[in-house]
């Protein structure tokens, strides 16, 4: 039995890493895709008492299958409360929530995120979705978990547009802004787990994913990435977690399909 789940995909590794960042009893606002799978995994394992909130206003949901969108109708029946955006994001803006998930097209070394454009804002080479609730979650949640595709042009010395401030220029710059929320605590990328220095707020490499090296990660990062003295391989997912992911959370392989 156990053998069956000793392999894992990159997506599965990331979902498990995201789940580890959530503590029991926390109030978490979750988006679709990997963050959602990660939060559900946490709820099914070490954090049964988290309160899952969606920006669509669904609070403390018990969906009978994994939702496809933050407004999936499966979220509604069985929710403790169903409102709208004002209910879903009002609690974020009020500073009530512990954890939020973020993503984007680019991130810089201070965790500032770009979800707007590549190139010039007025004449973009590529235009993306925009903030949605991302900027609100970044401003309001006590801490945020960022999930990113790790490529050199995405981990960039400078982002083309700040959609969601991380630590801005680092140091005390964010603190001075007086946001209710504290900023990003971790980046779970496709190559590594990265955290932020408590004083300088600069991102550093905490662990590289199995099969990769520190050099691989550095080579795919657009600045001279600092490395933790105790850098190590990212913890491999326990077979039981893989089993839950495959059999309970994503039986049709929609969210975790990629190797």
């Amino acid at each position, binding site marked *: 039995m156990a053998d069956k789940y000793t392999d894992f995909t990159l997506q599965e590794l990331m979902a498990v890493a995201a789940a580890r960042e959530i503590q029991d009893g926390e109030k978490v606002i979750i988006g679709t895709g990997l963050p959602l799978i990660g939060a559900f995994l946490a709820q099914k394992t070490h954090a049964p008492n988290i309160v899952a909130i969606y920006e669509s206003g669904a609070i403390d949901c018990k969906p009978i299958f994994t939702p496809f*969108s933050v407004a999936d109708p499966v979220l509604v029946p069985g929710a403790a409360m169903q409102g*709208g955006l004002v209910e879903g994001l009002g609690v974020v803006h009020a500073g009530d929530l512990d954890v939020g998930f973020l993503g984007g097209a680019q991130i810089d070394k201070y965790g500032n995120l770009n979800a707007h454009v590549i190139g010039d804002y007025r004449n973009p080479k590529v235009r993306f979705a*925009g903030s949605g609730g991302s900027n*609100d979650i970044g401003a309001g949640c006590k801490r945020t978990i960022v999930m990113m595709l790790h490529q050199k042009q995405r981990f960039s010395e400078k982002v083309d547009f700040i959609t969601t401030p991380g630590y801005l220029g680092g140091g005390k710059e964010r603190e001075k802004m007086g946001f209710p929320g504290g900023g990003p605590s971790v980046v779970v990328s496709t190559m590594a787990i990265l955290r932020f220095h408590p004083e300088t707020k600069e991102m550093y490499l905490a662990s590289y994913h199995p099969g990769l090296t520190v050099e691989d990660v550095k080579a795919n990062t657009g600045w001279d990435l600092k490395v933790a003295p105790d850098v190590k391989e990212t913890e491999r997912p326990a077979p039981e977690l893989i089993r839950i992911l495959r059999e309970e959370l994503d039986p049709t392989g929609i969210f975790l399909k990629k190797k």
Partner: protein
Amino acid sequence: MKVSKVMTAKEAVAKFIGDGMTVLVGGFFHAIAYDITHEIMRQKKKHLTICTPSFNEHADQMIGSGCVDRIVSSYVWMEVFGPLYSFRRAMEKGIPHKIEMEDYTNFSMMARLVAGALGIPYVPVHSLKGSDMMKYSAWMGDNKVKLMKDPFGSGVEHAVVPALNPDIGYIHAQRSDEEGNFQLWGITGDAPWSMRACKQVIVSVEEIVSREVIGRDPNRTVLPGYKVVAVVEAPYGSHPKNSQGYYNVDRDFIFKYIQESRTEEGWKKFMDEWVYGVADRTEYLKKYIDTFGMKKFMSLKAKDMSSGSVNYGF
């Protein structure tokens, strides 16, 4: 006693949506009035400013059709389904023409609408600050957002956004009476605030019911009828989005649209088939059943998950 506001989507759009208007397109990944949206496209409305906290593929269709000059929103995308290509073509390449987007966040858009609904002139928020949305404005200039010191002495500066009061709004809800007292349940999304902030509202519904049905459960009413100018009965009017209690999201159809709209030609072909090639929602549904079969159509129908009843007696 009150006059009935019931009319067709064609009549409602012809009568109430004018070129150059600021239009609140209601619905957040659901409750989208596709019947009204497609009618706007068929009637070739021009120079619209469309606004809502977050837009999906319905906005992409409007943009591709050339109806839209400006967008006020925080998001134009379809989540895990992927990017919206007409939006990108317009923003990146000016196809069919250049459009402008005034970028806010979901919460700051809602703050603007709550303010608009309540007659509050402006609202300070924690969002936006420190982002480049503070720096760049498409056309509102200084009136997009101000940075203002808290007058109550916290020492914090907040981004302050102005109330938003669109000329007209439209949304798809579950039911309404003939006067426009309409009810929405499940995810309310941008509603009720978005609709309350509008000067006038067109509501499209699954069912028109009697005033008595509305009065039996008045807590579910989103907006009193006096702001509603048209009530359109449109079963499956939100398809391929969902209407809680009536039908589920048609993910295959949304995915099909996104796939086909990758090229301008593909987009046009899809539109000719599903928008310009049908006269109204009834023909659209008939075409859907002809194309995908009754079994697929029936598979979208909602299962019964009853709310139960509560007592309003005294």
